[in-house]
């Protein structure tokens, strides 16, 4: 068998070849699950269709650790860290950004369903043309001088968050020939324990690129993939102003005991 080309920007494979690799991994997963194997709830780190993972995934099993004090706590963030204005990405410049104004809102919960209150949520995204305000994104789509695409907020007492922004577009990348990413917003979250730390991506319902996107498809289980897709929520849309999406985020279970959690409230 030929050596795999590990240059993440080589773009030598066709979409059909990537699709076949994804289909084979998914079929193998489904067969294992149907035979009583574990249900995978997270993305695979070793997922060859995402070329840049080839040299950047651990090849050995993760080592089991019993969480210690530092891992059972998270850094604290407050209004010293985050201004209330940072959750509105449409007011960061002198003019209105171009694109479909949306509100993305939801709650941050832990694995037991408890609200994660007063914690930092960060997000970043491409603009309405699919271009990031990042010097390494050089694909020929326009930058928007009125849109940076970075937001921060603190969750409310019930774990709620809300961002006002512009709907990002899909964009091309060099994973394979004619590769496109599903439209997405990057999210970064903290929980009550540092072990709950997560960086992920939120997607929009009905994206036609889902099946072709090896990053989205690195989650082998359909139910798990669906957890990254927001729902359109008309109650979040506002008359003559914005459309609305709802996306709740569930962090992994806290490793603290319930009593320890309560002491801090």
């Amino acid at each position, binding site marked *: 068998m030929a050596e795999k080309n*590990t240059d*993440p920007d080589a773009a030598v494979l066709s979409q059909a070849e990537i699709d076949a690799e994804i289909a084979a991994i998914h079929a193998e997963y489904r067969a294992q699950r149907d035979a009583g194997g*574990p249900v995978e*709830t*997270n*993305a*695979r*780190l*070793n997922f060859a269709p*995402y070329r*840049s*993972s080839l040299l*950047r*995934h*651990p*090849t*050995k*099993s*993760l*080592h*089991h*650790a*019993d*969480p*210690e004090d*530092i891992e059972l706590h*998270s*850094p604290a963030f*407050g209004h*010293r*860290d*985050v201004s209330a204005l940072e959750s509105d990405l449409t007011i960061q410049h002198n003019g209105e950004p171009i694109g479909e104004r949306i509100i993305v809102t939801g709650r941050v919960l*832990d*694995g*037991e*369903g408890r609200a994660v209150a007063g914690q930092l949520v960060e997000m*970043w995204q491409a603009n309405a043309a699919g271009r*990031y*305000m*990042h010097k*390494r994104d050089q694909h020929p789509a326009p930058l928007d001088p009125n849109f*940076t*695409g*970075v937001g921060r907020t603190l969750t409310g007492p019930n774990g709620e968050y809300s961002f006002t922004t512009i709907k990002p577009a899909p964009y091309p990348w060099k994973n394979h020939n004619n590769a496109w990413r599903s439209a997405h917003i*990057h999210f970064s979250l903290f929980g009550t324990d*540092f*072990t709950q730390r*997560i*960086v*992920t*991506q939120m997607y929009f319902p009905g994206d036609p690129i889902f099946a072709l996107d090896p*990053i989205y498809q*690195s989650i082998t289980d359909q139910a798990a993939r669906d*957890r*990254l897709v927001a729902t359109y929520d008309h109650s979040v849309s506002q008359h003559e102003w914005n459309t609305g999406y709802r996306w709740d985020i*569930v962090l*992994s*279970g*806290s*490793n603290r005991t319930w009593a320890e959690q309560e002491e801090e409230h």
Partner: protein
Amino acid sequence: MKLTPTPGQTVGPFFGYALPYPGGEALVDRSHPGAVRLHGTVYDGDGGPVPDALLEIWQPDELGAISQQPGSLHRDGYTFTGWGRAAVDGVGHYSFTTLEPGSTGSEVAPYVLVTIFARGLMDRLFTRAYLPADPATLERDPLLSSVPAERRHTMLATREPDGSLRFDIHFQGEDETVFLTYPNTPQFTGPVD
């Protein structure tokens, strides 16, 4: 109630204008009497540097106390918040200015908790950078003693001649870093050796 966690996804290549922030790498000022540099390089499976990784550290202070003070994103220059964030540079090198942590328990060897994000890395990885210590202290540590002896060195920071602490990270290879998983925090790697 038990809910299934939301999956992670890669931080991608374009986090550089969003997540790093001024002062993120300086948990204390360089002029602090206890200031120490914690630095190293992130390597891929070919032994090449990873130029688009992001690291976070989270640690107790010199006495082993865990800060619950806000202000990591806008540091006041006096409060030790215990948390920092730094992107690697063009040759995969990161650098923090921090304090050497104290121990959080009688048998626990002091360490800095390290989280790694990168383009190509689908989900964050955790590891611990243990401070150099006498062998008995390291042997007693409940986690280190559970790691196969031939891999323990990957979790030990080394003291450089200039007094700084060096902690390299290897995603793969002979010196592949020991990455950690915790109860209640499922992570599926895909096939492993």
